């Protein structure tokens, strides 16, 4: 790391302290091409297919006489994979097998959007922190606290219809924001690494909410022994968007608004400029007069609020009958993969969320019709991220050309002019 600062402006451009590693990673993830993303998804689906073939019973049976009749094995393998992925399609986009009309056939697509809603919200929270060079692994904790706060208001404090929903939503978002803000504050004040703090806060939130859920008078449903909250009051539940036959609710609109907000924040606002500057290089941002510590606190507050929106979605939209401590359903971690696949850009996260929502929605059809455990989604998802995170690996597999290493696209313009004039 270069530490000297020369007064000459041209030299200074070269010798400012290099940004921390996480900031460079952020830049690499942003800079990757869309082709890599698509190829990563394809590779992950192939890997998932291999896993399906390896564990398929018919394939195992026919492979016993593979060398006498290889066609049987290959046929069985093809059936296993095509059966699985067509079930995935039927469960997530369009159920072409039904004969009950278009309204029923299109239901899986709306199901996908419903699954995508909390993923997008939480993904935005993770992505925003990424843009500042922070890893927000605390999605689970932020969701739980937000859900507990919103759930308490939604289930136990009666209010007039519209007001109730708004208050529950706001309280939940504040809960998530505060839980995220702790991380920003500790990072800014003491330099505590946000990865460790967020992981630890996840567990603290989990035990805290578990405690509240089994304490009568806190979150536990009155007269119940289970660690579960009471059902949400009718006035606090997200209204359905397309009628009761579809599960899509107001939450999806809120998520679209959130995406637009994050886009505006990052690309059109002064605060977003500061965020991106700190994300590019906190040392340079500091020199330019940006208060880096306050940016850390602010971004974690907003990130926590966005993840909190996902938590609120779970209690006021998806589990309105009362929630338990497992309400986050792994979304806090899925959000990391969503943010990575979306390259931490708001609309990228939006579509990545829909893709993972489709995987989730389809996995249940895959399990019911093909007997493939839903856990396959975790495998496919983690493969996608591994491939996305390692562009050189994908390039090596598909023999894509390496971007020319001699081309320095970040070289200051002033240097290039100097070279030309030579």
């Amino acid at each position, binding site marked *: 790391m270069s530490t000297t600062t020369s007064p000459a402006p041209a030299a200074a451009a070269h010798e400012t302290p290099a940004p921390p*590693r996480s900031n460079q990673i952020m830049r690499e993830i942003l800079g990757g091409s869309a082709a890599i993303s698509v190829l990563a998804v394809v590779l992950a689906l192939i890997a998932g297919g291999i*896993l399906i073939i390896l564990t398929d019973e018919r394939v195992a049976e026919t492979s016993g006489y593979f060398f006498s009749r290889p066609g049987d094995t290959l046929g069985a393998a093809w059936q296993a994979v095509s059966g699985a992925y067509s079930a995935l399609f039927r469960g997530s986009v369009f159920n072409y097998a039904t004969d009950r009309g278009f309204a029923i056939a299109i239901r899986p697509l709306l199901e996908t959007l419903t699954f995508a809603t909390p993923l997008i919200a939480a993904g935005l929270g993770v992505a925003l922190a990424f843009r500042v060079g922070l890893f927000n692994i605390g999605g689970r904790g932020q969701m739980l606290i937000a859900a507990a706060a919103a759930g308490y208001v939604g289930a136990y404090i009666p209010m007039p219809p519209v007001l109730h929903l708004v208050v529950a939503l706001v309280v939940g978002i504040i809960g998530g924001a505060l839980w995220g803000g702790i991380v920003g504050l500790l990072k800014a004040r*003491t330099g*505590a690494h946000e990865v460790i703090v967020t992981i*630890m806060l996840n567990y603290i939130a989990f*035990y805290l909410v578990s405690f509240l859920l089994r304490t009568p008078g806190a979150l536990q449903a009155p007269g119940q022994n289970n660690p579960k909250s009471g059902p949400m009051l009718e006035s606090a539940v997200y209204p359905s968007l397309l009628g009761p036959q579809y599960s899509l609710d107001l939450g999806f609109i809120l998520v679209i608004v959130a995406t637009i907000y994050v886009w505006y924040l990052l690309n059109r606002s002064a605060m977003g400029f500061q965020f991106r500057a700190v994300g590019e290089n906190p040392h340079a941002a500091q020199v330019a007069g940006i208060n880096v510590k306050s940016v850390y606190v602010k971004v974690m507050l907003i990130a926590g609020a966005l993840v909190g929106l996902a938590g609120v979605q779970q209690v006021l939209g998806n589990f309105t009958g009362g929630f338990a401590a497992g309400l986050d359903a792994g979304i806090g*971690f899925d959000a990391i*993969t969503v943010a990575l696949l979306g390259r931490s850009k708001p609309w990228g996260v939006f579509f990545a969320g829909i893709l993972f929502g489709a995987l989730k929605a389809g996995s249940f059809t895959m399990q019911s019709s093909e007997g493939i455990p839903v856990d396959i989604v975790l*495998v496919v998802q983690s493969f996608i991220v591994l491939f996305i995170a390692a562009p*050189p690996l994908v390039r090596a597999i598909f023999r894509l050309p390496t971007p020319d290493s001699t081309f320095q696209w970040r070289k200051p313009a002033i240097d290039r002019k100097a070279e030309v004039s030579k």
Partner: protein
Amino acid sequence: MTAAPVTTAPASTVPGAPGSIAVKSWKAPIAFAIFTLIAIVLFFVVGRGDKEGNPTTIYRLSEPRDAIQLPPLELGLAETTIVVTILMVAATVGAFLLARAAIKVPLWLTTIFAVLFLVGFLTWAAAGATVPMIGLLAGALTVSTPLIFGSLGGVISERVGVVNIAIEGQLLGGAFMAAMLGTLTGNPFVGLLGAMVAGAAVSFVLAAFAIKYLVDQVIVGVVLNVLVLGLTSFLYSTVMVPNAETFNSPEKFERIAIPLLSDIPVLGPILFRQTVIVYLMYLAIFLVWFGLFKTRWGLRLRSVGEHPTAADTVGINVRATRFWNVLLAGAIVGGGGAFFTLAAVGSFGKDMTNGAGFIALAAVIFGRWDPIRATLASLLFGFATNLQSTLSIVGSPVPSEFMLMLPYVVTIVAVAGFVGLSRAPAASGKPYLKA
């Protein structure tokens, strides 16, 4: 940094400023004061109004089968809490005086303080009941064993410069492979070996992505945890559940009592009536400590983690050192994962490690990247977890969730720098690019 001396040079002439030599650290006395306050509140404000008179807590120090029987220890609630509180106040005052004289609070004082707090707390929480000390401590060791393996692997990995968030995945992979191979071969030792290979395999992915493809280590670690969880859950549902007999009923390791040593009162039954995995753990703790600090291997490993460029300059192959040691770390953690299926439970279950890897990670940090301290931290966390289950049996006034939360709170306090200095190896998490 050139900026640092410039700004601190004038400040260092001011006595007591951060730049001067006599550093007064108020963190320890403040921490003492907080715990003393907690103790006073618990013992005298909350109290045990639910118990009549002055209940006694009985500490049972031997089990019926022990060779040497010790009489149980009986502590009255009132006397114990008063004595403990007075001593804790004294220790706090002492710590403040030491801090004012700019003397670092010695470790023994902290240890005595912690033991005092614990005795007072236990006597208060279990008032009127019997605490089986052997069971409590032996159980704590059982809970701690995978944590210790995990933290040893974490220490090696981080000391060589690769952040290991994937401890959880390595433990889970180890547990799965141990159950699978242990059942298929009918030999737990093969299962243990398989667990080590599985842990090393997870490490291999981590090392390949982090060292070869320069992917961020935290991302790979997080994703690996999800991947291993997904893979083991998938294979558990498709392979193990339909054929539990052939794939998921491994023979467990037998407990072996070491002659003589196992007859030592209190300690013997806890430490020396254990399975092979625990004895291997003792060996591993010693070897990791000795290797890291007394051998050439350890010196090289640490230098690669602290200053890879310097290590490279003197001819150490940074990438190879990192690669092989991360693999070694994974093998150690994987061996710890075998403890779940071959010693503790006896079969694999979905997500059976249940966050143990993250507690081990916490222990690495709380133990300041030192194998002995990390082991002690693991023991502390294991003790807290097991204390919670023991207390829930005798009926404790503290909600179990808060006991379970303890390791995580303690870790946040540690990384926030309230307790001692928590400094990671300088190059941990940074890939090395040869210039």
